[in-house]
């Protein structure tokens, strides 16, 4: 009696172990039909971000669940570093979340592989969302017509757009007795150098500089000056790397000279953001970039600051706009609910208010943004600059609309000698262009391959 019971228990254990392993191996393709035990529909929303996003989306989801009885939303939050890897793993394992963040650079591959849903019809006929009230740049970033990005069907809606603007330390200007910059007319490049030189000072007379005109990280600031000088990384057809033009080289050289020739930035060797970022926050830097996500931090600083357009010789300034989108999975069990959830996350007024109040983004809804700008109580005073970037002169980062960003990243890998003054910009762009072109050609080939 006893013996046989032990034996069968043993057999059962072994069988259970084997079976469970075999089941796990199958990737749980079994019983998930998107319905909970109580019969309610289950949606999964995967995103990355901090507490502010989580709070805002919890609010939006609560309202979505109230409007859609019997639908439950499960949130999966990851860190920014982990997100791309986790999403890729989820897609490869066919465990695609119903709703998730995408970057503009992912749109082509996700759309051609049929991972993300074409939202066009549902969104255009929606009563939750009004496309005209959302930044056009944002929506267009997620359009793809099969060959060109920026046109055609909508594969995601913008979670936000991040106009990357330029700021100055007003207190420093006043103490130095320098005329404040005009909020509408950008400095010319020469004027900018002139002011930056005047700001670079030894204020306490100990023989060492205490404040500098500027200190800009090349990865995020060079775009404004290259574009402002008429250069670009890529041609309009998105098939040729154009960094080897004179306009481009001139802008890059000018950027490097801020440090090497004019001495308007801290330490010669370092272009690392952290250092100048810290110095800006301590009030030692005159001009520094400002993204909407910086506003809450900068408003805590001990000095007055405001926004101005980036310097430009062309009269019209230029800079880039970041964006992140929210897409719905093509394989979701509940397509209508998934799309509606996207709409809630993107356009819910309370959620937007939470994010704007937290000082991490500008309103996604245009009417709300106009109201926000009109409010003169909150800093910065010239919030309008953010909207000008969003509406008029902001552009996509060069690799946003290509299949892969490898060609663009290549540009920055070996740039340090130029910034240190050991190599001229003209030499460098001539050297790097062919390497970038090879990588861009590969990206184009990969894109055609994925589509076929």
């Amino acid at each position, binding site marked *: 009696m006893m013996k046989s019971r032990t034996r069968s228990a043993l057999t059962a254990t072994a069988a259970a172990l084997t079976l469970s*392993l075999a089941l796990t191996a199958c990737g749980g393709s079994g019983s998930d039909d998107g319905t909970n035990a109580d019969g309610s529909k289950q949606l999964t929303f995967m995103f990355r971000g901090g507490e502010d996003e989580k709070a805002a989306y919890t609010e939006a989801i609560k309202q979505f669940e109230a409007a859609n009885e019997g639908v439950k939303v499960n949130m999966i939050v990851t860190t920014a570093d982990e997100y791309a890897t986790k999403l890729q793993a989820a897609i490869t394992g066919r465990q695609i979340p119903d709703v998730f963040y995408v970057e503009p650079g992912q749109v082509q591959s996700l759309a051609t592989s049929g991972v993300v849903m074409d939202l066009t019809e549902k969104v255009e006929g929606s009563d939750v969302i009004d496309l005209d009230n959302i930044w056009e740049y944002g929506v267009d970033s997620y359009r793809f017509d099969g060959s060109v990005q920026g046109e055609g069907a909508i594969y995601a809606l913008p979670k936000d757009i991040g106009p990357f603007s330029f700021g100055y330390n007003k207190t420093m200007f006043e103490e130095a007795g320098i005329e404040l910059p005009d909020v509408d007319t950008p400095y010319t490049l020469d004027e900018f150098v002139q002011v930056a030189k005047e700001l670079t000072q030894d204020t306490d007379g100990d023989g060492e500089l205490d404040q500098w005109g500027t200190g800009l990280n090349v990865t995020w600031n060079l775009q404004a000056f290259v574009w402002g000088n008429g250069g670009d990384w890529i041609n309009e057809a998105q098939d040729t790397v154009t960094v080897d033009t004179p306009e481009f080289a001139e802008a890059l050289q000018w950027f490097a000279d801020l440090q090497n020739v004019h001495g308007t930035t801290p330490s010669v060797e370092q272009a690392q953001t952290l250092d100048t970022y810290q110095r800006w926050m301590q009030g030692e830097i005159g001009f520094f970039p400002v993204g909407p996500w910086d506003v809450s931090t900068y408003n805590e600083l001990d000095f007055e600051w405001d926004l101005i357009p980036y310097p430009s010789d062309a009269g019209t300034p230029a800079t880039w706009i970041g964006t992140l989108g929210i897409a719905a999975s093509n394989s979701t069990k509940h397509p209508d609910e998934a799309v509606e959830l996207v709409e809630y996350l993107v356009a819910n007024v309370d959620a937007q208010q939470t994010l704007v109040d937290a000082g991490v983004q500008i309103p996604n809804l245009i009417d709300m943004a106009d109201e926000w700008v009109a409010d003169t109580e909150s800093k910065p005073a010239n919030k309008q600059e953010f909207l000008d970037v969003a509406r008029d002169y902001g552009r996509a980062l060069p690799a946003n609309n290509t299949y892969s960003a490898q060609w663009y990243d290549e540009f920055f890998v070996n740039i340090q000698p130029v910034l240190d003054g050991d190599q001229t910009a003209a030499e460098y762009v001539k050297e790097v262009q062919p390497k970038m072109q090879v990588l861009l050609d590969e990206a184009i080939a990969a894109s055609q391959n994925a589509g076929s």
Partner: protein
Amino acid sequence: MAHVPVADDAPTDAASAPIAAPFPGATAVEQPSPPLRPRKSKLHARERRVGLLFVGVPIIGFLTFTLYPLLFSLYASMTKWNGLGPMRFTGFDNYVKMAGDERVHTAMFNTVFLMLGIPIGLILSLVLALALNRKMRGTTFFRTVYYVPVISSLAAIAIMWQWAFNGDFGLINQALDLVGIQGPNWLADKDTVKPAIIMMTVWKGLGYSMLLYLAAIQSVPASLYEAAALDGANAFQRFRSITLPMVRPVTFFLVVTSIIGGSQVFIEINIMTPTGGPEYSSATIVWHIWRTAFNYRDMGYASAMSIVLGLLVFVVTAIQFRRNARSTFSVE
């Protein structure tokens, strides 16, 4: 039913009964064992089945989690594939491309360069182990101190060292400043980023190697030292001729595992230099593979690089085992 008078909590399983009562005298009523003959009993067959089920667990695990992914990536390495869409077979294109890919060469070189930390770490940990083997106060305290980095999260450590290496406010440069040296911006300078990372990995691994060495040193028979001392060997001779050969198995183990681990360095690179460092000077091969696969969506090429890396690690380890087998040391 149970003829064998064993205690209630002893195994009642028939197969284990003879083993359970091996003491003569304790088993007065033990029956003589049945004569040996080919076992074909029903019981035996059932036991075999249960056995197979147990063996099946790791085998299925191996097939699904090791062999299948391995074969799959071998196939993927011969395709153009973005990880989402269809795979297009391209033969050895990826491997040919790798041979001329500057970035892959740089990443390989960086990975090997970072392994310079292995001998440094081994020497330091052996010295530490010798020091902590002496009879002095506070050894337990120091053992704990040196072991704390081992059990700490690598990500947290990487962030901590990233701060320590900061050019302006970092602990290391502040310390250097006290003795009048102006430290570099460690992680932003292509000449100092690799030494900086080596420093960190040595620090992190020290406690582990030290503990293994300590255990090995303590298991060296004292009689060997006594005999050597009688023969007039001085402390250095005793160390060279007794301690060093006796801890050789541990050294071998540490070298093999460190090289395998060292060829897979990823987390510290990704956290401390998220873009692969200035001029790609801190990009390791695994980091480059990860970036190719997940940032640039070139799974096929990334698979090919992984296969080559796997083969290299295999070959290097095999050579080490052969060399070790040829020069085995034993005490007569």
